[in-house]
């Protein structure tokens, strides 16, 4: 059914991702799919990394840890640099779906609040042609 699962991750808050990571790993096992972990960073230093290169390295390490902890057979990581991630995140994720050729997106999502300026998961689902699964934290 699915051969390539994309999992957007926020390295600043890995604890909020547990449920999504677990689900992605289970689905990957079930379908024999590979998993690519996608993260968005900035040119400026952030709480996660000082440079985009350091970020890419941390993301790669994160993917390797997932392969071990959640027993995923084939993992990869994909780091994206954005000028203004607070507003560009959704678009960057949509681009990544096509760039890496994923056919399923599994992402963590919080329960909607009244004045959310838009749900990342919801936007990705309405702007791409692949299946999207939102996992509530």
């Amino acid at each position, binding site marked *: 059914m699915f051969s390539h699962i994309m999992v957007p991750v926020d390295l600043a808050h890995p604890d909020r991702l547990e449920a999504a990571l677990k689900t992605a790993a289970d689905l990957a096992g079930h379908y024999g799919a590979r998993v690519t972990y996608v993260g968005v960073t*900035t*040119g400026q*230093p952030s709480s996660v990394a000082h440079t985009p*290169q350091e970020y890419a390295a941390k*993301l790669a390490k994160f993917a390797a840890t997932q392969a071990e902890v959640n027993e995923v057979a084939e993992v990869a990581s994909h780091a994206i*640099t954005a000028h203004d991630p607070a*507003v560009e995140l959704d678009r960057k994720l949509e681009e990544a779906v096509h*760039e*890496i050729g994923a056919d399923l997106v599994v992402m963590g999502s919080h329960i909607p609040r009244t004045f959310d300026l838009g749900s990342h998961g919801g936007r990705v689902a309405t702007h791409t042609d692949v299946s999207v699964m939102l996992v509530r934290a």
Partner: protein
Amino acid sequence: MTDTTPDQGIPEPEGDVDLIETEYDIGQDNIEGTLGPFGFDIHNPVFLISGLSVVAFVAYALLAPNQAGEFFGWLRPALTSSFDWFFLSAANIFVLFCLALIVLPVGKVRLGGADATPDYSYAGWFAMLFAAGMGIGLMFFGVLEPAYYFGTPWDDAPLGAIRPFDADGNLIAANVEEARRMALAATSYHWALHPWAIYAVVALALALFTYNKGLPLSIRSAFYPILGERVWGWWGHLIDIIAVFATLFGLATSLGLGAQQANAGLEHIYGVTNSTTVQVILIIGITAIALVSVLRGLDGGVKVLSEINMGLAVLLLLFVLFAAGAATILTEFGKGLVAYAQEVVPLSMPFGREDDGYREGWTAFYWAWWISWSPFVGMFIARVSRGRTVREFITCVLIIPSLVCILWMAVFGGAAINDMVANPGTSAVMANVIETYSPELSLFAMLESLPFAAITSTVGIVLVIVFFVTSSDSGSLVIDTITAGGKIDAPVPQRVFWCTFEGLVAIALLIGGGLASLQAMVISTGLPFTLVLLVLCVCIIMGLRTEHAAVKGTAPAE
């Protein structure tokens, strides 16, 4: 920029950099959470103290308007007349410092690591730094300043230049050439190398310590070489709070005064009533467009608007150029450049001058003004300058904007002076700048002397408004980043908050009075910031030396 890293292990850094090792994690002092329906991620002391002190100062200006007006109305001229020598000397140091960086070997250092690639094209980059840094002033002073120096009857001509009019307002033909030359040189002096050197120092310091040293994008980071780990404590909080304060008040007061100017223009051309209601509507409109811009982000909002802005400004410039006679005006530009080169040294001499009215009233005021805006403009320039070498950076932030400003002044000032010389009795410029001093109408008065005045004046008003939007949106991003401890991906509602807050402060001051006195206060922050900027020059040298040494150890990247 995208790269897939399927392999693990330590990646190749993007060329050599010399990261500063610090125990500080970006965002470690931040509070994250949700307030009702909104998420937030703020630097605790900086966010709260800057927010509350802004409210306190607005309350003071509203509750005791006379006292505040008197105090700040006294403070600014007192500072500029006692410390004019200090402002002038410091600005000269910044220019020499920047020019030295272009030729010294450390100019090879690339911001973001030896192999980093620029984030923005030259056009987009230039549009953004220009629109944030100077735009609005060019609209306001482009006609006013050259026309004023040319015709001033108040004994404050630069370097005691001769007057082209006698006591009855009759033209003295023999003096015109020299007075025009000095008017253009003196105006260019305020808009060319010196202000841009001030911005360049702050911007370079921030870019260097952010992109090459790995410290958060915040004013305090540039002080790391001097203060060490103390920058993460109260020293740093203080620096950041003052920066937020100067930026927010600088923007809010300019927004209020800008609304008054736009209203004056609308009244002049369309007969729209000049009232507080119209001005409040203008502020709400400007803030609303700025809000859309910050919601669309740096690339989709701020950059697009800056480019539209530049396009409109170029159109207006070309129109005035051709309508006022391209050949004459371009000769004027050539003469302006020569005059600037000849007079910049005498004009920037801090001691032994007699022209107090010009030196204290104009030059020192401008220097204090540019310096009080430098944290905001510098931080914004730094944000969009990753991937440039120091040499390229200084050339583009110092030399090119200087040439553009001299051209602008030659075109707008040249056209205005031509009108004053051609019709000394009936010229609208003469009437609005010299006879009755109404600075906000000077641009429209000049446009009246050219064809299609109704259309070009409308373009002029639109430009004034869009220039405010581009300052307001980039300013909101800067304040948001500083108050989030250097994080540039803080939740979107935060930048909405700052953008709205700025508009509200402007409206409160407009209705209650106190715009001018608070602007005087912002300009007064220029004095302590001048010291800070001098320290920054030392920090830049310290940072560049280690960086250059790290890069020299390997083969050249270019």
